[in-house]
């Protein structure tokens, strides 16, 4: 237990928090880009055009089936080699997570739009609302209630997935944790179990409140 003290030695704690900051920053940028792109992608996905439909489908299936770590490798190592484009790990991470997140978000948006029953559209029209008015007052509020909890869940998945970036050399919370453990391997041989437990709970307390909020909204709006 006394090896946990390593956490507060020197500036270790600040460094770990800094690592968490990198994790959250990468997640936040990727989530924000995914939401913006995903809204557009989702609308594209509802179009009947067969070419767009097939392309969107291919994109979605790709990000669903290929592991995020493989995508990271493809972008980080593959782009560097093929196009002689030396990306930083952070840039590769944002590209991959946005590519993945925008696809998933797009599908959520598509699901939310198509889930509105046809009779809602019809009764809005029957009330004499214009198309814009029925979207504004009837259809979008219903779609949003379905979309928002799912989008929040996607955000927690993206935060968790950010842990992968240490495997392409980004120094985030898990990597900082390993560095602290390495530096203290003689003074505090048991530090590993404590530091990794701390990192575990840091992730937990970053994601859990967001999951709770999603669950709460889902229950409230269902």
């Amino acid at each position, binding site marked *: 237990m006394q090896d946990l003290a390593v956490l507060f030695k020197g500036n270790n704690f600040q460094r770990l928090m800094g690592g968490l900051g990198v994790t959250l920053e990468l997640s936040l940028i990727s989530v924000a880009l995914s939401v913006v792109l995903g809204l557009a992608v989702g609308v594209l996905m509802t179009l009947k055009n067969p070419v767009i439909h097939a392309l969107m489908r291919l994109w979605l299936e790709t990000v669903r089936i290929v*592991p995020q770590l493989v995508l990271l*490798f493809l972008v980080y*190592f593959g782009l560097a080699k093929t196009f002689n484009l030396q990306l930083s790990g952070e840039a590769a991470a944002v590209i991959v997570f946005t590519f993945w997140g925008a696809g998933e978000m797009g599908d959520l948006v598509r699901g939310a739009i198509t889930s509105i029953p046809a009779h809602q559209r019809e009764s809005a029209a029957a009330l004499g609302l214009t198309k814009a008015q029925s979207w504004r007052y009837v259809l979008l509020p219903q779609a949003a209630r379905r979309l928002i909890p799912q989008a929040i869940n996607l955000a927690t998945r993206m935060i968790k997935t950010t842990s992968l970036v240490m495997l392409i050399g980004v120094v985030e919370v898990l990597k900082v944790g390993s560095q602290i453990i390495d530096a203290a391997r003689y003074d505090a041989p048991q530090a590993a179990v404590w530091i990794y437990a701390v990192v575990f709970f840091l992730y937990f307390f970053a994601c859990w409140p967001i999951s709770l909020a999603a669950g709460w909204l889902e229950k409230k709006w269902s």
Partner: protein
Amino acid sequence: MDTEFMRKFLPMYVKAAGLTLRLGAAGILLSLVVGAVCCWVRFAKVPVVRRVAGAYIELARNTPLLVQLFFLYFGLPKVGIKLSAETCAVTGLTFLGGAYMAEALRSGMEAVDPVQNEAGLCLGLTPAQNLRFVILPQALATAIPAIGANAVFLIKETSVFSAVALVDLMYVAKDLIGMYYKTDEALLMLTVAYLALLLPLSIAFSLLERRLRHAGFGRAV
């Protein structure tokens, strides 16, 4: 593309894919067991244990597998608990997957109309018979899409196993990139290997899902 190189290292990929598949399958099956137990504990309202199951599900769902594995593989040995890399991998995958499977099964159970339970009881079935013949077939049919999605998700998650020194697909690819600088070939084979593993699984589950939906019971999730 250096096809000679690719042919030479193909057996390494095949072996690594075998490892991924073996550990992934073990993790998925154990996840289903853990998930079923958690789901049962929550539905049967077993006191205390039910809270523990709830806490476990929240912990597992809100933390990354990579961090769980670091704790198991690098942390625990320092306090005298030494597990092999494979044991760590399967334990971590089960810890993560059990929570997801529990949620999939729970939503399946909740989708069964309560009147079905009553109808079974009114026929004089015992609670166990009712579960077996009336409730479970319907709950599982509803849960199948989510179980399938979880299975694909868990196989994808195995890609972090290389971090605990298991020679999986990622490990082989990284090795080949590092040693021979054959980046394109290594990455192509890596991607193809994962597609070969996951595409059939994904297609099989969507066919099963379509058949179940065609059978016309259970709600879409």
